[in-house]
């Protein structure tokens, strides 16, 4: 799982922005929650209380309960976090790409941000 996490993080870094970028991370988080719930179920079968299991895992009882509720509701369905990213219009994107081509390699992200104030920094970094 640790190696998987490192790989997913690197993958997400490459993916860009928005839901597509965060999907692998959210999926891995869901797998982790599922693993915790499976452990909790096993402990329950052997007679351990939910509170004891939560203490064993160093997490709060309310978090464990909310994950359980989430599993009952929609099997811990993946929900994207944050607001949807603001994408620049095509002309703006082309303008940035032209500028990068023209000034390469001496063009920094800060410089481009000053030139195109309405565009998100991450978008510029990815285009670079």
């Amino acid at each position, binding site marked *: 799982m*640790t190696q998987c996490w490192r790989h997913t993080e690197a993958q997400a870094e490459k993916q860009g922005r928005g839901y597509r970028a965060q999907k692998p991370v959210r999926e891995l988080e869901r797998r982790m929650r599922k693993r*915790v719930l499976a452990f909790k179920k096993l402990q329950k079968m052997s007679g351990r209380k939910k509170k004891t299991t939560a203490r064993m895992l160093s997490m709060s009882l309310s978090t464990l309960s909310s994950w359980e509720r989430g599993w009952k509701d929609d099997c811990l369905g993946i929900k994207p976090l944050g607001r949807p990213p603001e994408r620049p219009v095509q002309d703006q994107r082309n303008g940035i790409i032209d500028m990068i081509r023209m000034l390469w390699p001496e063009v920094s992200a*800060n410089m481009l941000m000053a030139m195109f104030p309405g565009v998100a920094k991450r978008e510029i970094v990815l285009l670079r």
Partner: protein
Amino acid sequence: MILETVSGRKEVPDACRELGINETAFRALRDRVLQSAVEDLEPKMPGRPKKTVSGEQEEIERLKAEVWDLKSHLEAANIREELRLILPGVLISPGESTLEKKRRRRREKREKQRLKMMKQRPDTSGSQGGTPA
């Protein structure tokens, strides 16, 4: 044969002859049978008699429980380690209050931002260092 002698349908010497034993042995046998029949009708504790567990068996059970407990704790430690990596926000240190948790999270956020800034700084200075052509 014994029941037949009790009910009077057969004489004791006849029964002894048929069984090939003497009369004393026959009477002893008959007494034993009747005694056990009477004992069986005595009131007893309901249910199956308690299973007697030997000391060895008890030790095996105790060790089994201990192994299960240790395995559970090992698994919990593995999960904790993974949680620290994947979902660090859910972990709490024992005895940590909500306020302390909030403070810790704020501290971690600040630290993360500081690292991010440090990571970005050489990149920015490197690309701005040269004069544009």
